[in-house]
């Protein structure tokens, strides 16, 4: 009797599962961005984080800016350039929207750096350096470094190597944001040691349970950034 009762539930349960699976494959964007998944992982959760970062849950405006940036040469990466060269703004916007609405994976925290290094990193991230007019990372990327919609990316859940590579690319002029390029200005004034400290501290922070970027209120940034509307 008990068994029969259970059997009556089974078809309904199966149907529900099939429905859910159907809905997942029915999202045409999932199939269209399959080529991206090769490096950035299923739904933008990367398995090769230091080389191709996770992009799930990053702000839509920020992602769109990176996609058009690779296409138009403001950022340089041979694979990304060839991948996106012939795609329209509309299509790239749909891709950005798709990834901005995916759930990010939680990265296991990498090994800790020396306490003195972390302390130096934390000071720069949270307070900047007023004497050099160096703004704190948190002043733009948010107190908890989760980024702000629509155009300022979060900094957590990224590997130190990846963050270092980006600051390095800004310093050497291979990564650009729309002018005035605030990150190029900041990265250009940081020493290699400071970059190591900042990225070590950021990478040691855990992604909180509620990690959605907040929406930016109309308030001036401490530095002029052409990429932030």
């Amino acid at each position, binding site marked *: 009797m008990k068994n029969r009762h259970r059997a009556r539930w089974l078809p309904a349960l199966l149907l529900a599962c099939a429905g859910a699976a159907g809905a997942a494959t029915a999202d045409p964007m999932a199939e269209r961005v399959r080529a*991206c998944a090769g490096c950035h992982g299923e739904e933008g959760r990367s398995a090769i984080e230091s080389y191709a970062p996770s992009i799930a849950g990053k702000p839509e405006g920020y992602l769109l800016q990176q996609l058009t940036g690779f296409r138009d040469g403001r950022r340089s990466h041979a694979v990304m350039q060839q991948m996106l*060269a012939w*795609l329209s703004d509309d299509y790239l916007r749909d891709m950005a929207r798709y990834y901005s609405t995916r759930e990010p994976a939680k990265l296991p925290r990498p090994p800790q750096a020396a306490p003195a290094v972390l302390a130096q990193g934390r000071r720069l991230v949270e307070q900047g350096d007023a004497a050099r007019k160096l703004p704190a990372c948190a002043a733009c990327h948010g107190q908890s470094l989760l980024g702000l919609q629509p155009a300022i990316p979060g900094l957590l859940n990224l590997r130190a190597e990846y963050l270092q590579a980006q600051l390095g690319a800004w310093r050497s002029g291979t990564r650009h944001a729309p002018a005035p390029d605030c990150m190029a200005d900041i990265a250009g004034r940081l020493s290699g040691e400071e970059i190591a400290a900042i990225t070590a501290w950021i990478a040691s922070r855990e992604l909180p349970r509620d990690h959605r970027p907040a929406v930016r209120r109309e308030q001036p940034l401490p530095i002029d950034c052409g990429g932030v509307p």
Partner: protein
Amino acid sequence: MKTALKLLVLLLVPALAGLLWLAWPDLREAPVEQSRAAPAGAAQIERGAYLARAGNCVACHTQAGQAPYAGGRPIGTPFGEVFSTNLTPDPETGLGSWTPGEFWRAMHHGRSRDGRLLYPAFPYTSYTRVSRQDSDAIFAYLQSLAPVQAPRREPALRFPYNTQFALRAWRALYFRPGEYRQDTQRTPEWNRGAYLVEGLGHCNACHTARNALGGIELDRNYGGGPIPSLGWEAPPLAPAGLMSDAQAAEMVELLQAGTSRHGVATGPMAEVVLHSLQHLQTTDLAAMVSYIRSLPPAAGAPAPRRPRVSEARRQELMRQGETVYREHCADCHGDRGQGRDYVYPALAGNRMLTGASAGNAIRSVLMGGYGPSTATHPQPHGMPSFAQRLTPEEIAAVLTYARGSWGNQATAVSPVEVERR
């Protein structure tokens, strides 16, 4: 004394003959007319916009992310780099002070406003076929654009290629100016197609192999070949053998949408579809294909020199390749290389995959890519990059397998070739 005179004559005669040979094209050139243009009507400007698209002017004359037609895009050649010029009507840095006659002379004779010879990266070897009327319409369209100030960038060519003398010699060898002449034995459709393919389309800029001096060798016409400094190879314009009506219809589809039932336009061809072909009327695309399918078989590029793969090694690669294919490729391209209609290209019978050189196929696997976003196919599907996921050995194996399965009969690919890319 007499011997000295003889020697002088002996040296002078060939020297004079050489000079005459070099100067001959100039002597035959009509003087440029300086009259200003009559004000262009909206219809002429619209026709010019269409023709400019047929010529794909915007692709070379625009730098990525900058104002269209303002020039400055670097164009690599085996002889150094040249930069495209500003076609907007800015009086100082663009075409603002040009007359229609001067513009036509650039298109027809490859000469700039001041009489300098232009570098043939500007494909005047093809544009010379364009009629005066069409040239005037393109000029009227360009003059209707908003002027953009964008100074000329000096070419960075090696000696002696950077001299006017070298250009003069090159032109004497490889350039014959002349408008397209109708072939009355052929249909108007065929003639329209020939006019577009040979003229504005400048298809042979890529689809015909060039010799060591960058000259287009007419006996190799449309046989395909490497595209210098782009790292891609153009396939022969037409497939070997007769093209069926179904194949012709699919070619029109590919040129218009960038994605057809079995194929996708990739690399430089995706750019041509994006900026040029998708904007042409279907009748014009059909005319181009009707001309292309009538082309005689071409000699093609000289066979590329490639590392040899022994039969035993080939069989080993085939076996290994089948495993790689099942794991990484079959999901999209199908277990028999049949592809998915209008989504993922078929690999069985794929000309990009089975060319004499495996260059395009290796590049596609390493770098991946999307087809072009077009009006009829705005959201194409893409191919991932396998550079980080497969070893050169695995890439060579899977390409050997795909080039040698489902009726494909192309040669094996050596891991050395993959490593060289």
